[in-house]
C-alpha cells in the first residue's frame, strides 16, 4: 500500500517547494546565505547543462558562475509562479550563448577538450559507462549550434518551441539542427561501436 506514503511524499514536496520559495524571497531581500543554499541545490544541474552546451570544462564553470551571478542580480524580477530552477536554467542557457558569442570559438571541435569533458561526465555515469562516455565525447564534438539543440531537446527534454525560444532561433532551425546533430552522432557512434566490436 503506497497511498499514505504518497500523501507524505506530497507533503514533503510541498515543504520543499515552500522552503525554496522562502530561500528565493530571502535572497531577493539580500541574503547571500539564502542564495548560497539555492546555489548548493541547483549547481550540479546547472553545471551539467553548461558542461554539455559548451563542451569545455573551464567555460562551463565560467558559465555556471555567471548564471548564478546574473540570477542574484535579477532575483527581484523572478516571478514566483514559475519554478526557480526553470528560471535559472534559462539564465544558464543565456550565459552559455553569450559566452559562445563572446569567444566566437568552437572549443568542442578540439579533441583534447572533448576528452576532458567526457572524463568529467564519465564520473557521473551509471548506465553502461563505456558507451555513455563515447556518447558524451560525441556530443562534445558536435558543432555548437547542433550541440545546443541536442542538449536542450534530447537530454533535457525541452520541446522544439521551448528550445527555439531559449536559443533565439526559429523552430524550423531547431528541428534542422537536431536532425543534423542526430546524424552526426549516429555516424560517429556507429564508427566508435564498430571499432569497439572490431577491436
Amino acid at each position, binding site marked *: 500500500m503506497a497511498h*499514505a506514503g504518497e500523501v507524505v511524499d506530497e507533503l514533503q514536496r510541498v515543504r520543499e517547494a515552500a522552503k525554496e520559495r522562502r530561500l528565493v524571497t530571502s535572497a531577493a531581500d539580500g541574503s547571500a546565505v539564502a542564495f548560497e543554499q539555492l546555489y548548493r541545490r541547483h549547481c550540479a544541474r546547472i553545471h551539467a547543462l553548461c558542461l554539455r552546451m559548451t563542451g569545455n570544462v573551464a567555460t562551463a564553470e565560467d558559465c555556471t558562475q555567471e548564471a548564478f551571478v546574473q540570477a542574484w542580480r535579477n532575483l527581484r524580477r523572478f516571478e514566483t509562479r514559475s519554478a526557480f530552477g526553470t528560471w535559472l536554467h534559462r539564465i544558464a542557457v543565456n550565459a552559455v550563448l553569450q559566452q559562445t558569442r563572446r569567444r566566437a570559438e568552437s572549443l568542442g571541435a578540439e579533441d583534447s577538450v572533448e576528452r576532458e569533458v567526457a572524463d568529467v561526465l564519465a564520473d557521473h555515469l551509471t548506465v553502461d559507462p563505456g558507451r555513455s562516455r563515447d556518447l558524451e565525447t560525441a556530443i562534445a564534438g558536435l558543432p555548437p549550434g547542433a550541440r545546443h539543440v541536442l542538449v536542450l531537446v534530447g537530454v533535457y527534454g525541452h520541446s522544439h518551441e521551448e528550445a527555439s525560444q531559449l536559443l533565439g532561433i526559429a523552430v524550423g532551425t531547431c528541428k534542422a539542427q537536431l536532425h543534423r546533430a542526430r546524424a552526426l552522432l549516429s555516424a560517429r557512434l556507429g564508427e566508435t561501436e564498430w571499432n569497439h566490436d572490431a577491436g
Partner: protein
Amino acid sequence: MTQDEPTAGHAAARLDARLSELPLEVAPGRDLWPDIAARIDERAPPVAPATRRAAWLWQAAAAVVLVAGSSLLTASLLDRSVLQQQSAVPPVPANAHATVVMPAAFGPAGQLDPEYVATRRQLTQVLDQRIAALPTSARAKLEFNLGELRRAADEINAALAEQPGDPLLEELLLKTYQDELAVLSNVSQLTNSLANEPANMPVSPTGERMQL
C-alpha cells in the same frame, strides 16, 4: 541498405534512449561558490526599494515555510481593525474544520474564486469525515502540516491587510491555498480508495491499514 542496418527511425529512437540515460546533474570539479560570493559582494544586494515591503515579504515567506508554531508577524505589526476593514471575510461554515483559514481579499473588490471556496469547503468536510480512516502517524502528520499551511495563510492574509495588493504576497497566498487544496484533494482521493478496499483487508494491531 543491408538487412543488418537499422532504420533511421530505429536508430533515432535508440539514440534518444541513450540520451535520456545521461545524468542531469554533474557537480563542478571545484566549489564555485567562493568566486560567486566574491562577485555578488561587489555589487549591492538586490534590496527592494521599499524596505518595509521587503520586511513583510520576508515574514510572509517565512510563514509559508511552515515553521511550527511561529508567528513571525508580531502583534505590533498586525492591526486587526485594518484587517477587518480590508478583508472581506465571509462567515465560516458551521460544519467547517476548526482550523479553516480565513479567506483572503485581494484588494478592495477581490475575493477568492467562489468555485475554489466551494471546492475547498467540500474537501475539508470530506477530510473531517474520513480522517479517522488514516493511520495514526499519517493523521498526525497531515493535521500538523495542514495546520501549518493554514497558519501561514493567516499570516500572509494579515500581511496583505497591511500591504493590500502586494503582488508577491498575493502570489504567496495563492500558492499556499493551492498547496493546501492539493493536500486536501490528495487525502480525499486516498480515503476514497481506502473506502473501496475489501472489508477483510488485513488490519494491524494498532488499527493501521496502510504502510507509510
